[in-house]
């Protein structure tokens, strides 16, 4: 099935997942977006402009770093970190916002909206909007505005309007609801830059394609460094954009194991987590069918994670498909385990990871010792931890 992978189909389906579940007013703009996306994907001018921006503005290619000390300490596989934390704005999110903003410009849209959880996608969106001179409004759950205040300030510095969303659970899902309400009201001049591989078709495929540069670079860098493909890939999964970006170019290489790591929060058994693939069920939210955290009545239940970027009740539909087909494996890491990953990388390698990426680090600490030293694990270090300094200091009882 994955020998010649061609998902999604023309209507955005990954098997039973994905699709286009939106209110009628959004059908025309989504069709317009899909047509533009399909067109520019094959336009050499567009691709050249994108490549140039990725190189000189984002700073690509990002290094593939051999974490030798940490590998030795764990006593198993060689661990390599894909350094998306070194990108401009500090995470992988900018790979996608640069692409979508160029698309917005070509489509003649003058206004950009986005949702954000941890604020990384909001910052990456505000950044490209500033550069292109586009009006920018970012929706962010009121709870996240408080716990990621540094990123709120960055977005405002960049000229964006940050709207604190007070409805529902006041986190990422509610920010997405509010962004959809804005879009439905301002469809004529507004481009909605979704930050993850969720939403209605074509977003899951489009965001994946913009993020797939992570995996394409990784493949070449790994061959250069080790002379072979990696044995395993590890990435954290909230909506799943950094994971799919790493995984996608390897899907047909079935000897490469792929591990997505969800946020188990206080523990899967407590119900206070953000792990729909591990403990959810299929349903429809935010324009696509996928695994969701919902109750027996189909109401979405509140999620919990120490990391705002993983605090989402759904997951990209392609991950749902990769789970069902068995091509990728999905595990979960608790808040406390993620903190161990955070401290380990910080003290062992002098790299402070984002709390989201710390989930991938924590899983790597479990996986590496089960493999042999000649084997290779590549972990996506999707973002840097600067934004989490307040959260971490507060946990340690330190006033900044």
């Amino acid at each position, binding site marked *: 099935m994955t020998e010649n992978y061609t998902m999604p189909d023309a209507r955005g389906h990954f098997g039973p997942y994905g699709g*286009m*579940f939106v*209110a009628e007013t959004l059908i025309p703009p989504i069709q317009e977006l899909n047509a533009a996306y399909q067109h520019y994907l094959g336009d050499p001018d567009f691709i050249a402009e994108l490549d140039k921006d990725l190189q000189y503005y984002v700073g690509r290619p990002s290094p593939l770093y051999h974490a030798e000390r940490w590998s030795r300490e764990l006593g198993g596989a060689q661990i390599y970190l894909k350094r998306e934390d070194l990108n401009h704005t500090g995470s992988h999110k900018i790979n996608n916002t640069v692409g979508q903003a160029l698309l917005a410009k070509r489509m003649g849209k003058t206004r950009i909206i986005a949702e954000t959880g941890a604020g990384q996608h909001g910052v990456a969106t505000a950044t490209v909007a500033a550069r292109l001179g586009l009006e920018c409004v970012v929706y962010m759950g009121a709870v996240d505005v408080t716990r990621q205040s540094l990123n709120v300030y960055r977005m405002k510095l960049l000229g964006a309007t940050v709207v604190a969303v007070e409805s*529902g659970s006041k986190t990422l899902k509610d920010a997405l609801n509010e962004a*959809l309400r804005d879009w439905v*009201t301002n469809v004529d001049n507004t481009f909605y830059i979704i930050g993850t591989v969720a939403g209605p078709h074509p977003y899951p495929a489009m965001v994946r394609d913009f993020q797939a540069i992570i995996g394409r670079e990784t493949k070449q860098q790994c061959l250069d460094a080790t002379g072979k493909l990696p044995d395993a890939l590890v990435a954290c999964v909230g909506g799943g954009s950094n994971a799919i970006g790493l995984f996608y170019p390897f899907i047909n290489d079935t000897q490469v194991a792929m591990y997505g790591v969800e946020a188990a929060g206080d523990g899967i058994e407590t119900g206070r987590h953000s792990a729909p693939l591990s403990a959810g069920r299929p349903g429809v939210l935010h324009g696509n*069918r996928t695994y969701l955290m919902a109750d027996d009545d189909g*109401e979405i239940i509140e999620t919990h994670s120490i990391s705002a970027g993983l605090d989402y009740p759904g997951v990209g539909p392609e991950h749902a498909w990769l789970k069902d087909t068995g091509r990728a494996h999905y595990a979960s890491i608790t808040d406390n385990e993620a903190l161990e990953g955070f401290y380990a990388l910080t003290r062992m390698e002098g790299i402070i990871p984002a709390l989201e990426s710390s989930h991938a680090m924590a899983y790597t600490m479990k996986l590496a010792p089960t493999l042999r030293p000649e084997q290779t694990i590549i972990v996506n270090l999707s973002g840097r931890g600067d934004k989490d300094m307040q959260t971490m200091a507060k946990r340690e009882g330190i006033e900044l």
Partner: protein
Amino acid sequence: MSRLSTTLEALAKTGRKALIPFVTAGDPYPEFTVPLMHAMVVAGVDIIELGVPFSDPMADGPVIQRASERALAHKMSLRRTLLLALEFRRTNQTTPLVLMGYLNPIEAMGYEEFANAAQRAGVDGILTVDLPPEEGTQCAELLKARDIDPIFLLAPNSSVERIQKMDTVGSGYLYYVSLKGVTGAGHLDIASVQTKVAELRLHTQLPVAVGFGVKDAATAKTIAGLADGVVVGSALISKIEGNLDSPEQAKKEIIELLASMRLAMDTLGA
């Protein structure tokens, strides 16, 4: 023929337009809803749209969002909404009832079980905001097989192709969303509604109801002059929200508003 088609045809014969209130099931508490539905029938409404509360009502403005939150706080759900429908049907076998909501509660129940339950509850139409025809044929067929009309939305930016598609897959009536925006938004543009409804008529024989932004008797009357039905939702729910300490007062104000709309709509041309 479905109860919806029968009702709308009877109205058309007498030149009257359908007054269609929308209220959220279980807002502000579950026992409030069925007596309100009966009172609305007495006030002269023709069809009732009952909103199924959902945790993430993406197409709704703040008024209906908060109605959903109030209802969910009382553990209202799709199953309990169907029980309210059943209770309403015990003493009213004539007023068509449309459930309006989002897809996930139906997904959780299962399409077939939902269609069977809706039929048992005497529901006449289902409007699922985030289920466009591309994704909704299976559900629509299950409903039609049980004489329940799948009702679809059309918007100001819907193309001729979309209108024709809705005409094919939809039945009962088409719900024209009068503006680009969420429910309860305040910028209804009568001239553009007139133009678009005329365009819809070229491509469908189905009755057209217009909603989103109908706030008072004067607007209801104007819309009634253009379409076959007038949907009013947020304006009614605002009465509930404005009288949370006195639900009876809320009911009284809702009935007064609907009665004034009925009167205005029945004196078209006057």
